[in-house]
């Protein structure tokens, strides 16, 4: 069979597969969960095949990069069907964030800045959800804003999700009194700078156009000195670095961070020097925080996939290094 024919065959298979499952969903099909036995058999097969790849590599036949991609795809998807849950241990920087929030008395005003867009949502959205949920549970007042245009929309998605929960509905949270979404403001770090003197100058109205002064929650909030705690969800620039340098260092704001794992290591410097009170780094940080909040969100759900993929990557690092050193330090992949 020619390559072209194989490609067409694969596409047809994908289309058939998706149509079958889509109609199954419409017909009210339930979620699929493997039994313990199936799950363990699959895990054993994975381990065996990785062992086989290692043996083949030692014998000198290298794998292509597509094999790595397929493995990663499989180990990310499979755990979502498995009946196991991942054991999560809480790291000090997550605990310190939780404790800082716990210390705040009811009625505290918490500023949450959503500085990310949909591409980073898988990591940061669960953090946003669990953090705001915790704030509502503790009767804090939540003020939302964004330095990225799509940030406040992500916040709305989070709020909608939180309010689906009957426990939260029972709290009768009112917009304008218990929480507001001030929306996006252009100007990057200068927005934080100006907020140091006046929130209202940067957000004359909220994202729906309601004037600042007509919302009871923010009416009396002039600047950072009226805020009890700040939380920043960041995927890059403008984000955590700017919040630390301006809001914390110039205006003395107490700040916690939720970061994509990519930029989390950079934030440890600020954690170590006490400039930030706590840090949620990547999905792991999100899952740990969910555990502390006693809430099973997406981060917890995805942790098993995360761990499986890490195992496979470690396996490929070993295989790659074996190939690299046995092959006289040349590329460890066939199709380089």
């Amino acid at each position, binding site marked *: 069979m020619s390559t072209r024919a194989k490609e067409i065959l694969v596409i047809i298979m994908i289309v058939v597969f998706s149509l079958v499952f889509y109609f199954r969903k419409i017909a009210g099909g339930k979620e699929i969960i493997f039994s313990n036995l199936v799950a363990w058999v699959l895990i054993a097969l994975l381990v065996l095949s990785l062992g086989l790849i290692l043996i083949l590599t030692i014998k000198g036949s290298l794998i292509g990069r597509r094999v790595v991609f397929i493995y990663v795809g499989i180990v990310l998807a499979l755990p979502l069907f498995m009946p196991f849950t991942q054991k999560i241990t809480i790291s000090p920087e997550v605990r310190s964030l939780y404790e800082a929030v716990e210390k705040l008395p009811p009625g505290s005003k918490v500023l949450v800045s959503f500085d990310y867009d949909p591409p980073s949502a898988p990591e940061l959205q669960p953090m946003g959800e669990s953090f705001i949920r915790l704030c509502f549970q503790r009767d804090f007042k939540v003020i939302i804003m964004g330095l990225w245009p799509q940030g406040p929309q992500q916040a709305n998605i989070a709020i909608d999700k939180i309010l689906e929960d009957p426990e939260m509905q029972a709290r009768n949270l009112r917009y304008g009194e218990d929480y507001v979404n001030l929306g996006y403001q252009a100007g990057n770090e200068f927005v934080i700078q100006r907020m*140091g*003197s006046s929130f*209202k*100058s940067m957000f004359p109205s909220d994202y729906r156009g309601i004037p600042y002064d007509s919302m009871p929650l923010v009416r*009396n909030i002039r600047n950072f000195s009226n805020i009890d705690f700040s939380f920043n969800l960041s995927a890059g620039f403008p984000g955590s670095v700017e919040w630390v340098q301006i809001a914390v260092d110039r205006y003395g704001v107490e700040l916690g961070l939720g970061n*994509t794992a990519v930029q989390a*290591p*950079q934030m440890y410097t600020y954690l170590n020097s006490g400039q930030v009170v706590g840090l949620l780094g990547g999905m792991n940080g999100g899952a740990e925080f969910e555990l502390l909040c006693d809430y099973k969100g997406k981060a917890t759900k995805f942790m098993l996939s995360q761990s499986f993929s890490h195992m496979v990557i470690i396996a490929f690092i070993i295989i790659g290094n074996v190939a690299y050193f046995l092959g006289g330090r040349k590329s460890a992949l066939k*199709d380089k």
Partner: protein
Amino acid sequence: MKTIGLFRFLPALTSFSIAFFIIFSPALKAQAPDDSLSTTSPDALAVSIAPPTSLVVFDYKYDDGEALELTWVPSVDDLPVVGKVTGYELYRSDNGGEFYKITELIPGSNNFRDEDLSTGVNYVYYIVALSADARAASVKTEAIQTHREWLNFNLKYLFLIALIISASVIYFIETARRGKKLFVRKIAGLEAVDDAIGQATEMGRSILFIPGINDMDEVQTLAAITILGRVSRVVADYDTKIHMPVSRSLVMTAARETIKASYMAAGRPDAYSDDMVHYVTDEQFGYVAAVDAIMVREKPATIFLLGSFFAESLILAETGNSVGAIQIAGTARPAQLPFFIAACDFTLIGEELFAASAYLSGEPKQLGSLKGQDVGKALAMLVILIAVILATISEIRPLETVRYVLDFLIQVFTIKT
């Protein structure tokens, strides 16, 4: 052109004045409009909770005369969990007028900074503790006025150190201008630039130059454009093809000017075309998708990834690696460096990017800045060394002089907000 001379100093002038204002003008604040504050008359004293005591008000130091600082001892009934106090209300009277509520505070509060005040007005305060069914007011404060200070002495050490470093930058720039050769250590990876371009020429393939995804206000982008000047000069000499997709319109114009100047200098202005540099999109991953596709389709022999990168760094470097290009990368974003180191042949780590830019351009301004910053680094190393030794000694044996010097050093580097 006369104007050129003036605008050369404009950035320096603006940045200096802004820095000066930030340091020295506590008054650098926007005029916030008056909030609608409720006016209520003073409360009758209730007896079932104790009032806050020792309410003290004093002028907030180093500001434009618009803030007062208040501290008090919370009510004895204000205890975590079991306490009766549900919050506080703070009242103020201006110039002997009626008292009105200026803010509500949460239990446990013991201080407040009242802002947006005016000079020449007499302010009197009192604070009320609230419980579910009672209120207890403190004694009123003495009348007080705000004071305006011109200089913020909280930042005096910061100013001093900035002054030392700035002065050494200026000194070294002037030294370089006078033609004295300034030593900069060899930077690994720089020699590779010419070889990489040579190889692209031999293979008859193009060179891809990616200047990061930040705009021209990012110093890393500026460094990348400086290095582009050198790269495009060699490219023009060798008659190699250069391709530069960018994600910012300003970067596009700056890059076009730079490459054009290089082609002119090489005496081949006709070989230059505006198409060498083109704008793609501001959207991070949209830009990545386009650049990846260019890499796969054009299969450039050499790829430069210099400037400010974010999450796209690994995707770009990995794709470049997969098409077998020689890759020379450099960024000062610590989070992105690991990927460049893993996937590229040569990486300029952090400040090496700026050093390379200074080294290649030989420009007095850049060389002088680099040397000036070295003075700053030497200072930092010295302070860390001395202070750590002193700190360790003072823990072993508490000597008064050691402690005194140590406290002074810590105080110098502590920034009060």
